[in-house]
């Protein structure tokens, strides 16, 4: 079968990310902070489809999500970086499928995303101590909830997409 980015149904599944971002189910949040749906979708995509596809998918998702959110900070740099890095990991060595590995990768990815947003806030908004405390709290809470959800959501996506695009 063709690679993932040539299968319209697989590409269309990315539409779920902005949709879930808007729905923002409150019952799926840690102290009010929801998971990073972009990271949850991008991780299996990049692992299956490679670094270039992962980077481009990260940029595309980031642009859409930046359009849906207020403020000047952007998710694009972190999503491109993680898409590329996860793509490289997927292409080298044994296929990643263990729950712990998926959870750890999603946790690191969301941590990187949170740190990138934090740095942008420091430069663009303010360096008030309370803002820093809130940014740390949000980064850790989002990384934790994303890392916990990744094994459940990611392993199912990996199974589906590896069947459609075998290495």
């Amino acid at each position, binding site marked *: 079968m063709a690679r993932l980015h040539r299968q319209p149904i697989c590409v269309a599944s990315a539409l779920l990310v902005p949709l879930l971002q808007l729905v923002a189910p409150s019952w799926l949040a840690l102290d009010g902070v929801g998971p990073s749906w972009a990271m949850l979708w991008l991780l299996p995509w990049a692992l299956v489809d490679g670094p270039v596809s992962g980077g481009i998918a990260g940029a595309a998702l980031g642009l859409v999500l930046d359009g849906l959110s*207020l*403020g000047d*900070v952007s998710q694009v740099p972190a999503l491109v970086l993680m898409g590329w890095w996860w793509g490289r990991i997927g292409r080298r060595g044994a296929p990643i499928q263990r729950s712990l590995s998926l959870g750890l990768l999603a946790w690191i990815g969301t941590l990187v995303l949170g740190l990138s947003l934090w740095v942008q*806030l420091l430069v663009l*908004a303010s360096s008030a101590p309370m803002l820093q405390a*809130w940014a740390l709290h*949000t980064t850790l809470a*989002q990384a934790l909830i994303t890392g916990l959800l990744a094994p459940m959501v990611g392993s199912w996506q990996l199974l589906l997409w590896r069947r459609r695009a075998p290495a």
Partner: protein
Amino acid sequence: MGLSQRPQGSRLRSFQRLWPWVILLAVLGLVRLSKGAGFADAFALLSRPFWPGSAQREWVQSAVRQNDVSRLELLEQDNARLRGLLELDQLSAGDRVQAAVISRTPSGWWQQLELGKGSFAGIAKDDAVIGPGGLIGRVQSVTPSTSRVRLLTAPGSRIGVWLPRTRQHGLLAGLGTARPQLQFLDKDVQVQPGDLVSTSPASTLLPPNLPVAVVQTVNLRGVPAPTALVQLIAPPDAIDWVQVQVQVR
């Protein structure tokens, strides 16, 4: 000598016959002096089971509410007329549009609401968004059928506010947390926890005299000026419907 020789025992007996009447007279005098207090209290005690029920109390309360609403409308009309004379209402007068909250992220990196009405309903950028109790944010972007609201708690949100008690201006800055920070413009502040924070009476960007928050804690050692943490009156994470103050353009 007949009267003067009246025996002592007979006088005592006549006094004994009279003294209850004297006491009664004294008691009645006390009743008169106290304006019948004892009777009124006794009547209240006895008639308590027959007092008007809660239904009548609600009627009275409803009438009081109606009276307050009427007075508020009259005062608002008067206020609008006076603001018109002062030429302050050019941007603040207008209708309020009811809009449903169709998506909300009160926590997290982006603290915003998505409303189910947009430019077709007359909503435009910078319109004030009001929840039950007070201001919660401002419209940042509009599509024909939706509006995106930046909450007052969001990092980067800044609005000018007014403390009615001390008659001082301040800047309300969102920090991401549930309690925004009130930054004062001068060093000498008399603000206390519990003080109301509202929009400025002379505001032309926001509706004037709109309640916003209540001061929770004050940091008088803030640099360059004191700061305070405030609690928003309208909690954005529990609101399904909001009002958007549409400006007349």
